[in-house]
């Protein structure tokens, strides 16, 4: 297509230092100061707009709030504003010169566990807030557990409202120690604790002078610099075939490309690969994007792979390496979070599992236990999982799935459960074991 002169001139000047992307989830309730914290991050990074702020101020004033209620910024739905609660995950965006951030802002109450699980599923980092006056509460432990269940690689505990405890080092230490001890029992690879006052902006963007005893970074400094590049699995080649590109054209003939997004590993031309579930092997002829061939592909790139041999491959197949392949399994053990309010998960229940680009009918063969997500107690007598309940479940699928353990691979280890009669997404699963 023709390029307008304006675009031409602009392109050079517009090239900036490339930023990377960090997705983080926040959990907490208004009481913890979560909305204030998010409002502060948006405001101090100039990501909050005057018309948004004016609208919130006007609504706050009309409702007789004593201060501008920044929660109104994130509570986007009529019902949320009317009831003064956050119901759903809200996505917020801000950027600094170093990084672009996507916040999945989730409600903290136990009745919204499914929303937090949803927000955490794609998060590189999770931010948990506690009120310094109250210390760790049941909710903080639950949030930490859900982050570890969802394998969020980085956890940040913000000890908020430090202004209300006189910036006390001892209060902070006590909470930090208690939380660190609790996290040690979970699967938390990286934990950072930051004392903050979201209301006054201490330790949010820059280091606070009120807490000279704290030697760590400000929250934003940490968010900007936390090392996430190593979180991705670059070892196990997993390329779920999403779509087969076969142009019906007279100019491009005999083209057959397998399009998809790299789940893990690095794919390069001439690599020997195996295709599952058939088990056929071939070599990579080319890795392409619309802009031409690329020397290698890694997560999260969306590419098209061509192979040297003509073998039958379709959507739902997986390209991997002959000596490093996922399990081809019909018996799946998973931790399941149930998300449907109308019907519980029951033994013998029939569902559809959607896993990578493949779907399979499945039957619940076993419910080993239901987990009390506050006490972590296992109830082995449980016969069902209701909304927001988590348990260990055994499925049998009609066709094999190509799976890894969730702790090794979030993309090939996670799945959603769909009720075929209502078409609703009723649960999420994290694979523990496949055989």
């Amino acid at each position, binding site marked *: *297509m023709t*390029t*307008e002169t*304006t*675009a*031409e*001139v*602009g*392109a050079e000047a*517009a090239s*900036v230092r*490339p*930023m*990377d*992307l960090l997705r983080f989830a926040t959990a907490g309730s208004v009481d913890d100061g979560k909305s204030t914290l998010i409002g502060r991050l948006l405001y101090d990074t100039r990501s909050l707009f005057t*018309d948004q702020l004016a*609208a919130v101020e006007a*609504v706050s004033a009309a409702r007789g709030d004593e201060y501008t209620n920044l929660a109104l*910024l*994130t*509570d*986007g*739905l009529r*019902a949320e*504003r009317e009831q003064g609660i956050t119901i759903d995950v*809200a*996505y917020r*965006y801000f*950027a600094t010169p170093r*990084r*672009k951030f*996507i916040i999945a802002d989730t409600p903290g109450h136990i009745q919204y566990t*499914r*929303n937090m699980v*949803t927000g955490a599923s*794609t998060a590189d980092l999770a931010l948990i807030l506690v009120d310094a006056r109250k210390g760790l509460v049941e909710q903080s432990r639950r949030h930490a557990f859900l982050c570890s269940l969802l394998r969020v690689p980085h956890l940040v505990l913000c000890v908020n409202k430090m202004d209300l405890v006189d910036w006390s080092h001892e209060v902070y230490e006590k909470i930090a120690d208690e939380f660190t001890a609790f996290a040690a029992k979970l699967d938390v690879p990286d934990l950072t604790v930051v004392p903050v006052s979201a209301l006054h902006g201490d330790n949010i963007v820059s280091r606070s002078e009120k807490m000279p005893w704290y030697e760590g970074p400000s929250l934003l400094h940490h968010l900007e610099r936390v090392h996430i*590049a190593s979180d991705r699995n*670059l070892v196990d080649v997993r390329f779920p075939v*999403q*779509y087969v*590109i*076969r*142009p019906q*054209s007279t100019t491009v003939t005999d083209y057959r490309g397998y*399009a998809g997004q790299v789940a893990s590993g*690095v794919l390069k031309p001439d690599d020997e690969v195996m295709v599952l579930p058939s088990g056929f092997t071939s070599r990579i002829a080319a890795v392409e*994007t*619309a*802009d031409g061939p690329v020397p290698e592909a890694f997560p*999260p*790139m*969306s590419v098209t792979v061509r192979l040297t041999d003509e073998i039958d491959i379709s959507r739902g197949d997986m390209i991997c390496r002959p000596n490093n392949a996922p399990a081809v399994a019909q018996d799946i053990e998973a931790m399941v979070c149930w998300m449907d309010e109308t019907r519980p998960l029951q033994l013998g229940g029939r569902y*559809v599992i*959607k896993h990578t680009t493949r779907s399979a009918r499945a039957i619940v063969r076993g419910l080993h236990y239901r987990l009390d997500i506050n006490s972590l107690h296992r109830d082995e007598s449980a016969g069902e999982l209701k909304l927001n309940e988590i348990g260990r479940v055994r499925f049998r699928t009609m066709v094999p799935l190509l799976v890894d353990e969730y702790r090794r691979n979030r*993309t090939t280890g*996670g799945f*959603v459960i*769909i009720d075929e009669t209502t078409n609703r*997404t009723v649960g*999420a699963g994290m694979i523990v074991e496949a055989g």
Partner: protein
Amino acid sequence: MTTTAAYQVSHLDALEAESIFVLREVVAEMERPVLLFSGGKDSIVMLWLAQKAFAPANIPFPVLHVDTGHNFPEVLAYRDQRVAELGLQLVVASVPEALANGLVRESADGMRNRIQTPVLLAAVEQHRFDALFGGARRDEEKARAKERVFSFRDEFGQWDPKNQRPELWSLYNGRHQPGESIRAFPLSNWTELDVWHYIARERIEAPSIYYAHEREVIERDGMLYAVNEFIRPRAGEERFKARVRYRTVGDASCTAAVRSDADTVAKVIEEVAATRITERGATRGDDRVSEAAMEDRKREGYF
């Protein structure tokens, strides 16, 4: 592909990869997708991504334009040029036709934003589209901040915000009964600034009204509206010349311009980066009606 370090991609590459994944996912799982194309910057970028997602094959779905009859001529010309270049099938859902045959009635304020919804839904029904790609972004508006990438709509095209499907990882559930449909939003995680950075990087041509130009305008409700066949000065409103550009392109009777000297992509990026007002707040009369104007329109089947 810009890499910031070994095996790292820039945020634009990450967004592009995610959008391409969504586009392919819809085409793989749905029967009859269609892409909503208005000639606005978001739909331009979406169409660009569609071209990339299926290359070297052609885009495997038609485009749909909901023509309110209140168009900017530059934008219509752009639409026709892109459709011709890509060899696309264009479906036009015409509000003037729907007015003529009585499907909808003109609203009292003359704005056609609300009445375009039934026209869109009629076209969807007629062509049996089961998936509609929209260029909506979550940063645009607070109701949109809560919408899924795959947004389920019932047989009346309605959105039920309290009954949305949980969306985890990149697993999207597009299952539906006949008559129901999915609105898919590949640009969900893009911001206005991302869109402009991408337009610059990919050297995508945009309609000229996005860049600063002289135009005869009037000031109404604190916003600048172009004087044209749809907008006439009312008593007490004075027409004057101003250097303006459009931040959004919608119905010409309710889309306002902003004062601007940004006549290149680079200057637009600078301007967008510095602005303190959201694009919808600055330019859209239709969103100012009430606190929940967008949510209410979405419930009725709007994008």
